[in-house]
């Protein structure tokens, strides 16, 4: 049964906003979330009730995000370089352990080095929690392409974050200590 726009907004606005905020920070997230739902609202009558709404919404957001790929890469690089994440710096008292902080900076560098289209697929998978088939619908790609790109991106990240498998060994041999 198809849902009304209000029901979809109620269910999807907050997670979509948070996803966009993780990508680009507060200000851009609000603009992009508003733009995404504006596009959805205008095209609501044309939406096929049989189609799932969530991939459609994230597909609209992904199209809008394209204009911000360079800004996203710039912010990731800035974090990797300075240790200050522009996306979360306005949050109150975020405490991150030192070892996790170093890992995050490495990850930011690795994410920045990905091809934007691959980063899109990876983050739709990891942060928006879309399935492979939902990502395929959102980005108008064959499911096989999504799977292979996701696999390739995972490999690439693993090589960058952990070129000699050290993290895995370290993680298994010396579990992280809880802060006292």
């Amino acid at each position: 049964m198809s849902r009304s726009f209000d029901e979809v907004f109620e269910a999807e606005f907050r997670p979509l906003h948070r996803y966009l905020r993780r990508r680009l920070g507060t200000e851009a997230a609000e603009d992009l979330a508003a733009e995404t739902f504006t596009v959805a609202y205008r095209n609501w009558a044309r939406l096929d009730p049989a189609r799932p709404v969530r991939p459609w919404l994230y597909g609209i957001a992904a199209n809008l995000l394209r204009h911000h790929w360079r800004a996203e890469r710039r912010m990731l690089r800035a974090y990797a370089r300075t240790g200050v994440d522009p996306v979360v710096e306005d949050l109150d008292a975020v405490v991150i352990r030192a070892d996790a902080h170093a890992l995050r900076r490495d990850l930011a560098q690795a994410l920045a080095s990905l091809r934007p289209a691959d980063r899109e697929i990876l983050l739709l998978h990891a942060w928006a929690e879309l399935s492979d088939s939902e990502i395929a619908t959102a980005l108008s790609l064959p499911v096989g392409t999504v799977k292979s790109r996701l696999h390739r991106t995972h490999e690439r990240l693993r090589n960058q974050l952990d070129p000699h498998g050290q993290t895995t060994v370290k993680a298994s041999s010396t579990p992280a200590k809880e802060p006292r």
Partner: protein
Amino acid sequence: MTDHDLQTLLDFRSEVPEPDEETARRVYSLVTAPRVRRRRGLRLQPPVRSRLVLTIAAAGAVAVVLAATPAWALVRDVLPFWNQPSAPSSVQVQFSSLNRGAPAGMSPQAVSGETRQVEQVTFGGRTRTLWVSPAKNGGFCYLWLPDLPGGCSTPTQHLAWVAESVPAHEPGQPAQTTGIPESTPPGHFVLDWVAGDITSPANDVVIRFSDGSSTHPQITWVSAPISAGFFAYAVPNDKQSSTNHVTAVESFDSHGALVTEQSFPK
């Protein structure tokens, strides 16, 4: 990618919270705001008999409107905002920068992605395009591109304008067209163009000159969610002299009552 790497990715920025209720409500209002839509190219012709009835009814309605409506409303042509051409990303970026440059808590919250082209005017030999975007605070922002400034207004501001000043020239002399000489003393500047916006109840703009004359710049009205009129006026050379120049910009309501008066120098 190891499980550890994947966990790092899942944790990355996981402290970012979902937006609060107020943000959700504000965006919902913005998204679902009523829009003016103009049908283009499609005309549905009713059957002849009902067309006759409609014609009579329409004539009656027009007569009632003519009797009840002030003259200003009949000549007002309102541009439907959502039907105007969308701005390219290069323009949207400039509207985004209006938000980023604002002090904390004072961002105009321009919705850059909804920027529309409203009009083009040529003065001083150059064509400028007026771009307007709605703002989440209920107001709007506008820029005259490529080279003139703009601003942001709220519905409670009934007149806002920007202008550029140049050194006054002596009567009968050509206007200063190159850089401002360092020797120009403060207070010897005059305006060479004025651009701005008005919102209800302001309905008309008058620009006054020191010789007692005045002019009404043409106003372009834009529909909701902007609901404002925009004007741009290039001051003629003979009104940029030390003895005759712009002294005030005023707005009036539909009954001719003064709404706002701003003199120059401000």
